[in-house]
């Protein structure tokens, strides 16, 4: 509901997102560069987004040595 606590929180996240978009787009100077803007994740905080969608653990892999190794 408008002006509910949730609404105000999400509105703040949305405002933060638009600031991020402006910052990230400022680097997109050459054609084909990535564009950043409003999408389905724009009213999530970065913390929420990370906790919901970024849950892969780091795998330490061997540096590729060009050898044909299996496994």
């Amino acid at each position, binding site marked *: 509901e408008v002006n509910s606590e949730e609404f105000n929180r999400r509105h703040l996240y949305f405002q933060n997102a638009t600031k991020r978009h402006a910052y990230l787009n400022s680097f997109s100077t050459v054609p084909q560069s*990535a564009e950043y803007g409003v999408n389905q994740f724009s009213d999530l905080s970065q913390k929420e987004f990370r906790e919901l969608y970024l849950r892969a653990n*780091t795998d330490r892999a061997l540096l590729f040595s060009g050898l044909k190794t299996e496994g």
Partner: protein
Amino acid sequence: LPAKFDWRDKAVVAPVQNQHACGSCWAFSVVGAMQSVHAIGGSQLAQLSVQQVLDCSFQNEGCNGGSPCRALNWLKQTRVKLVPQSEYPYKAKTGICHFFSQSHGGVAVKNFTAHDFSGQEEAMMGQLVERGPLAAIVDAVSWQDYLGGIIQHHCSSQWSNHAVLVVGYNTAGDIPYWIVQNSWGTTWGNEGYVYIKIGGNVCGIADSVAAVFL
């Protein structure tokens, strides 16, 4: 190596999926690689069960996270056969593992490799052409705001937090880029895909790259 290569052109890449609010990207990337390599080997492209990996890969933590290499290691050690998605559909929450008899049809992993290709992305292109789509982990913090185009900046390679499927590359234009399938649905990015500049290990795309053998 060809200037551009895309396994989607050979109809061996399954449609983009949506993990929804569940940290299951690691399972999507592994199953995506298996589906494609199975089709490259001449089988009909069929969607395999991500939920089976989510529920049964005990070294991982289901919706709370996991690693493609640990999932591949579990698949290799146990020889578990992944059943069709239709038999064990995705629910976007961790459930109880369903077991199937060895005589039950499915796709098993015989082996896999995992390499750090940072500084050697051309060799990674060769691996992609030779082995099929690759499961990779990336730093996807800035992808929250991504709309499309080629990511070149502000995507570190320090801290991996997401898993994806590399399905192709294109070095024919001004900016060479990887073609990467994500698991956030087709309304995100370039119809569910993200393009990442080749060279400089942007987003950490080359840090840990796995190829599967079936």
